[in-house]
């Protein structure tokens, strides 16, 4: 369904802040699959999602969706098929707009926005029903500005917005990282529920090894802009959080070795 072929991206090339975010990533995502991506800070896992979403254009490589080349599509064009939830619970909603207005914008995702009323009475009835499923009592507060809600509530609503119109691909970017444990649990449960119900093709970046071990049917570990580990099927099912942590430790140790070795070489020869 989604093909990522030999994708490279370097930020601030040629400056002191140069970051090689993606260095030859190849991933084929199957229709209806649920891929979990883990990796250390700066491993390129968020850059991977952003390259798919079109937050930036890649330096090299191709991105194809359903056989169509979307490498050069701007972000707003790709949005028609993508549902996105961000790490920051404030990123996915417009704080001064009401809950209903935010949801209405999600209901027109990817379509033309004309001069019809944004929140029609039919849409409002539908909103009440869907929002009631959150069991947060928000269905009676559809006209309150969304900025007055808690991070967990906003993130739950962002998730509803992302899947309001069935997306071809759902991108979750560490969407529970900034929440308190209880809200994080709620949002994860909600994510599992909607993904299973709508059979959504999903890519989820997470920092939590527990989530990575428990969720999804495929696991990618990224390191230094490349895919280091790709587990599927039975392998993915068997993997436990401790093993993943151990893998991380290995990676970290080899990194340290690299650095100290480089330092030693520099001391001796420069």
């Amino acid at each position, binding site marked *: 369904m989604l093909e990522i072929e030999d994708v490279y991206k370097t930020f601030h090339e040629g400056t002191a802040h140069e970051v090689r975010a993606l260095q030859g990533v190849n991933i084929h995502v199957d229709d209806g699959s649920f891929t979990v991506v883990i990796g250390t800070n700066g491993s390129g896992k968020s850059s991977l999602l952003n390259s798919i979403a079109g937050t930036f254009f890649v330096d090299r490589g191709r991105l194809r969706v359903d056989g169509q080349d979307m490498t050069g599509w701007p972000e*707003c064009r790709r*949005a028609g098929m993508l549902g996105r939830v961000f790490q920051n619970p*404030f990123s*996915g909603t*417009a704080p*001064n707009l009401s809950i209903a207005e935010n949801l209405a*914008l999600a209901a*027109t995702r990817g379509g033309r926005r004309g001069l*019809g009323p944004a929140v029609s009475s039919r849409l409002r009835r539908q909103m009440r029903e869907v929002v009631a499923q959150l069991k947060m009592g928000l269905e009676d507060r559809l006209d309150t500005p969304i900025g007055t809600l808690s991070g967990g509530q906003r993130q739950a609503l962002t998730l509803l917005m992302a899947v309001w119109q069935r997306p071809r691909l759902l991108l979750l970017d560490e969407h529970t990282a900034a929440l308190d444990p209880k809200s994080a649990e709620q949002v994860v449960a909600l994510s599992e529920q909607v993904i299973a119900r709508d059979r959504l093709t999903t890519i989820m970046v997470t920092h939590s090894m527990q989530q990575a071990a428990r969720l999804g049917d495929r696991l990618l570990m990224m390191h230094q802009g490349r895919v280091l580990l790709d587990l599927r099927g039975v392998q993915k099912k068997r993997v436990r959080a401790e093993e993943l942590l151990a893998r991380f430790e290995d990676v970290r140790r080899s990194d340290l070795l690299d650095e100290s070795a480089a330092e030693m070489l520099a001391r001796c020869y420069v």
Partner: protein
Amino acid sequence: MSLLIGALTIGFILSLLALGVYVSFRIFDFPDITAEGSITLGAAVTATLLANGLSPLPATAMGFVAGLAAGSITGILAMQFQINRLLSGIITMTALYSVNLRIMSRSNIPLLNENTVVSQAEKLGLRWFRAASVPLLGWEVSVRDLALLLLVPLLITVACVLLFFFFRTNLGTAMRATGDNAQMIRALGADDRRMVILGLALSNGLVALSGAVLAQYQGFADVQMGIGMVVWGLASVIIGEALVGTRQLGFAITGAVMGSVLFRLLVAVALRWGLNPNDLKLITAAFVFIALILPKLLRGVPTWQRRLARA
């Protein structure tokens, strides 16, 4: 009395300017200084067309359209060419100065003998009241002033209602969301650059409309009439927010109009009490400065009190 009526009428006319400033500064968080040029542009276009014998309503509408164009230029500079927002406005504003002179082909066009919206209103007033002046609360008031005091608020009400409903359509909601959270609206498939360009066009259209009506009211268009207008509009918006106490759409729109009228009344009273008109812009600027820092100062009060209590 006629001073009071005049202040009210000008306050209502300039509330279109306040609404324009509200759209750019508040809805889009875009410090758009183009307004200084586009208010004059509206006046210049309308005055020139009136002087050439076009009837008042189409001439005024053309002033509005000219403002739309000016605003979209600033929008394109800022969004397509990624020029600093303040600088984009300054560039357009500077260019408009020459454009306005070109349109008028001199620095001032008098409109006293032309057929304008105001002279139409006067005719209407004469037909209603069948006299050149009528007693109002013990004062003799000319029907021209009275007719305008009735008609201008009507125009403003129509503009406000249209604006309110526009910002609640799918397009309008997407525009408001753009100013609130551009990342979110891009993720939902709207081109945020297009939204800002449209928003600035609308903002400057309103400002130019204000200039078009103002020129007809005061009886001339002048190339200097835009100086200080952005700060003036901002002062109105800030007073309006203080009056209604919320930034919700409907209240904010009403607030901008109320702020504009109240500010104009305060200025009229101050001038009556002997304020030197030359000091007006200085005082307006000082007022906006205080209004901008006041919330921060007030927030600082509790810590200051704590420090005092500890000592």
